[in-house]
């Protein structure tokens, strides 16, 4: 099937690019080693602190993988002729798009599973299969608004070199302010007030709930926030995509 070939090609493209692989695979493990592991022992209110931190880092990892890789792939294609060439072939435009999304999700699965393996082994706790699968599934669900945001940035920002700074500017402050690196209790009051309006905050609540940490407002509420943000960024992504189409293919 063509779509599988295209997905394979997209995956190979990312796996062979050190600029993509180092942040995707190494950064989460590095941050875990620096900031997570030293605090990962012990239990609070019956749940493992290590699992709490690991679930936060899984959310961080999945956002980073999807946002950077997807926005850069899209911006690169707009800058180069390869995509234009693909559009002269019988390949369907929707299929090319699906291949990009699926390949990035597959890459995210690799990144977060690797992080979970390294995290559980290094901190010396175990994650039951059910919790593991639940964590991965929730992380992928929670990344949907970020996938849409990445598509929006990829089409809205001019020039591939501008994409990384833009993503960094959004992604790092948001991850901090959502309590993915440091628990919210340790952050200023103002940040604590803003956090519940950020999609990464709700993603963190959902992934931590998978490993037994009760979520702040209940899974359903957090999931609704995720879906709401997904819709908002999908609308923006479609707008930016159409604008790009109009400029290059009309």
């Amino acid at each position, binding site marked *: 099937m063509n779509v599988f070939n295209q997905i394979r090609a997209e995956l190979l493209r990312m796996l062979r690019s050190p600029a993509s692989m180092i942040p995707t695979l190494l950064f989460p493990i590095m941050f875990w080693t620096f900031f997570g592991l030293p605090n990962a022992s012990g239990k609070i209110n019956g749940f493992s602190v290590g699992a709490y931190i690991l679930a936060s880092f899984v959310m961080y990892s999945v956002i980073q993988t999807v946002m950077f890789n997807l926005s850069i792939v899209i911006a690169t294609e707009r800058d180069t002729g*390869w995509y234009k060439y693909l559009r*002269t072939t019988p390949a369907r435009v929707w299929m090319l798009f699906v291949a990009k999304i699926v390949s990035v999700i597959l890459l995210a699965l690799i990144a977060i599973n690797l992080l979970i393996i390294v995290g559980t082994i290094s901190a010396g706790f175990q994650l039951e299969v059910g919790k593991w699968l639940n964590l991965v599934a929730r992380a992928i669900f929670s990344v949907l608004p970020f996938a849409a945001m990445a598509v929006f940035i990829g089409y809205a920002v001019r020039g591939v070199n501008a994409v990384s700074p833009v993503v960094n500017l959004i992604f790092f402050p948001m991850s901090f302010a959502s309590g993915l690196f440091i628990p919210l209790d340790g952050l200023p009051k103002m940040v604590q007030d803003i956090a519940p309006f950020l999609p990464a905050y709700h993603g963190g609540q959902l992934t931590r709930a998978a490993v037994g940490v009760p979520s702040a407002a209940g899974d359903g509420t957090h999931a609704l926030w995720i879906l709401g943000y997904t819709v908002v960024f999908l609308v923006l992504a479609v707008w930016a995509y159409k604008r790009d189409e109009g400029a290059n293919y009309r």
Partner: protein
Amino acid sequence: MNPAVELKNVSKQFGNLKAVNDVSFDVASGEVVAFLGPNGAGKTTTISLMLGLRRPDSGTARIFSQDPQDPTARERVGVMLQDSDVPSTLRVSEALALIAGYYPKPLSVAKALEMADLTAKASNICSSLSGGQKKRLCFALSVIGNPDVLFLDEPTAALDVESRRGFWQQVSQFAEQGKTIILTTHYLEEADALAERIVVINQGSIVAQGSPAQIKARVGGKIIRFKIATPNVLTNLAAVSRQHQVGDTTELYTLEPEKVLREIFARNLEISDLEVRGGGLEEAFVALTAAKPIIGGQA
């Protein structure tokens, strides 16, 4: 028989620029046609309209009587775009296999590699290829689907003379299989080497078309260049379309260099560093657009 490619009264405007202005023509199946014109003439836009990469503001484009955006039309089309590039992290053979998968009856990867003289580079990462090799890969990608119509947009721009000739040979071999080929170029020599019909395009309109011989007669201008101490004596030279002074060097533009030289020698003028070169197409197009269009030599 239906034409392979057909444009009917096609126009395309970008802002204030009329990139393509009411262009109509057919390309018969099996024909090799070259679009010749200076940079910015509208060649690439015309190709984009034929390919369905862009939509005409008015008029229609058809490939085998189908909308060019229709995937079944695209199954019969191979393309080498001017600004095409290669997927940087795929191997040459991987890129070809990927594209082959989109076509119903593709060539084998080995065959496409052979046609583009790239067999030795099959397992190289595309980004490691040289400029000329990348162009050859783009050619291999354009033929891998075993298309009935091949579009080549400025295929040899930025290639050295030797690679250019090698490329012409590859294209000719493909044409011999009865394929339709449409190429754009700003080299008259290239159009002459490959095409049965040349369509000259300038400022979005067809200004001339005909056999290579007919077109060459019109745009085959030459530049005579030399140094002369007293350029003011060069008056009333017959057959000189334009005279140009660059420092102490004089340039004469003409369609009949022999006649002009004969006159210069007859007048016993003291000249040095004499040089006769093919005139730039830009020059020729000025002449062509000013003159009445010639149409002829069509099958």
